[in-house]
């Protein structure tokens, strides 16, 4: 379920997370150039990852673990924690399928369910399914420069392009000037209401990329609740066998 970057799980997180890594900071960059570089980094051909999702509400916390396999358009997630073990999700283009391990049946998820939190988290199914490049979905502009935890950042505002279906009408992103990684992002509804906020806790340089390995998404509509997402292990461009993203592979 969650994916690293725009494909899985964390559509959003990933957006930020995967945002990436550029080697040298540019001097005078336009918003489009910044996001393009971020997109370039986020647009990983395929990944294989192990991840943890930590759901916190009030004083309680539960952890879900999962395996993630994804390419540009498709994703397969399998939960491995005891309570959800064997539950799988297949995202194929704009359709989502779920495998129930007890009865070993595959059910197509209704479209409206895509806005629901996945497995009780603050990440929705739709978050996972937004795998398009950000520049294909939003028009960005630079609205300022700020520092976050000592890192100078570009602050960019993205507004959904007309006719494009997105989960969040507007997003404000803080992009690290040095590493070109998203450090923080705010996601807004068309009404202007702040829906969610993501923050990067830790990034690691893996295979030459700065990868966000620990981040948090907070549902701003609820009090005292957030979902953490940690990447335990990740492989870029693994060999994905043909037939991986199929219903028969869910069984």
């Amino acid at each position, binding site marked *: 379920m969650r994916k690293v970057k725009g494909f899985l799980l964390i559509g959003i997180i990933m957006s930020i997370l995967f945002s990436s890594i550029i080697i040298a900071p540019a001097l005078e960059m336009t918003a489009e150039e910044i996001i393009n570089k971020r997109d370039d980094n986020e647009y990983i051909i395929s990944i294989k990852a192990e991840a943890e999702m930590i*759901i916190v*509400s*009030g004083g*309680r916390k*539960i*952890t879900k673990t999962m395996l993630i396999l994804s390419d540009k358009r498709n994703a397969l997630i399998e939960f491995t*924690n*005891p*309570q959800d*073990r064997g539950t799988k999700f297949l995202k*194929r283009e704009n*359709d989502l399928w779920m495998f129930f391990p*007890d*009865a*070993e*049946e595959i*059910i*197509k998820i*209704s*479209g*409206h*369910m895509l*806005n*629901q*939190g996945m497995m*009780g*988290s603050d990440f929705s199914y739709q978050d996972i399914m937004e795998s398009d490049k950000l520049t294909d979905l939003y028009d960005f502009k630079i609205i300022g420069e700020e520092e976050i935890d000592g890192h100078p950042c570009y602050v960019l505002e993205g507004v959904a392009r007309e006719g494009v279906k997105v989960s969040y009408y507007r997003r404000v992103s803080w992009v690290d000037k040095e590493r070109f990684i998203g450090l923080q992002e705010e996601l807004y509804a068309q009404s202007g209401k702040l829906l969610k906020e993501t923050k990067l806790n830790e990034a690691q340089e893996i295979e030459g990329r700065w990868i966000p390995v620990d981040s948090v998404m907070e*549902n701003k*509509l*609820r009090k005292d*609740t957030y979902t953490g997402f940690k990447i335990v292990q990740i492989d870029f461009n693994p060999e994905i066998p043909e*037939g991986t*993203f*199929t*219903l*028969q592979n869910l*069984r």
Partner: protein
Amino acid sequence: MKKYFSIAILFIIFFLLGSISISAKVDIGGELAASLIGIIDNQGNIFAYPQESLDLELFLPTLNNTQTKFEIYLFNNPMSGGFDYLIKKLYLKHRFEKLHLTLGRQPISWSFGSMLNPVDFTLGSVIMDEETGSKYQNAIEAYYPINWNSSITAIAAFPNGFRNMKWGIRGRTMLEGYDLTLNYVREPEIDSMGTIIPANQRIGFTAKGDLGPLGVYGALGYYFKDNGDGDLAYLIGGDYSYFFEAGNKIYFQLEYLSMKKDNLSSILGPFFTGNLTNNLKENVGLILGMANYEIDEFSQINLMVISSLNDGSIIVMPGYRNQLSNNLSFNLSTAIYFGKEDTLFAPNVSEGAQQKPKGMIGIGLTYSF
């Protein structure tokens, strides 16, 4: 005969286990549940008894495209007073290049997202099946994938021994965003204490997709009869989610089932259809609704209602679930029966019909490991 079948599968699994490398990961998981069940009978008496169960599953690594599964369900049987067990899964699945073959005791479910399914391989309400085990059968399944979302499945099952084979075939595909299935099932002729119940067969069609913001689905079934006439059954349903300002959501599901009353007990089970022969019309209409409200990330309440439109009888089933920690959850479920005498879901029944209480309540904990 069934015992020999299981023993043979078990033997093969042990053989495969012996060939697994020591370093290969073998794991055990499952679920331990303990609850207290309370029943209010028609005289107002309350009976309560504890119920415990243990679901154990062996997780074995796949070996040369062969997957083995073993899952057993242990439970205390209130009828016998002792512990009993149900083997849920004991099978081998081999993935050939163009065919997946599964041999052994396995779940066979042709669910498509509805709460009632008049065209499943084994009929029975999805929501009321619980641990009756009706979905788990000794069978051979051949699954032939055509492309990523299309397939043909053929099943030969032996619910009552090898002499009585039940078989079925199901095709599945996707068209314009709709998940479509077409299936056929032939049940064997059954000799029930000298009475021959003729073989029956049925054909079914299901569809599930989206209509704007609504999830919609439907099923159409035709039950063949010996005299050439057949019975038609159909189901239509939909689901919808609504988000409150505070971020909480409520999920609705509503469906309507129409079918001949003779076929109803196979859908709902004998417990819910003890009064079938009395006042019901030939054609029965059932409406089933469900609402699920997510209080927070860990807890939710739900309400399910099923009603017979013919006689107005109704079952109301409120529930509550709370995820207490990573592996521990608390569950509360209730059922209350309303209806005039001799109606479908009424708590009071005619002489000779199966007794149904006025209400039931279950409260318990479930631990996953």
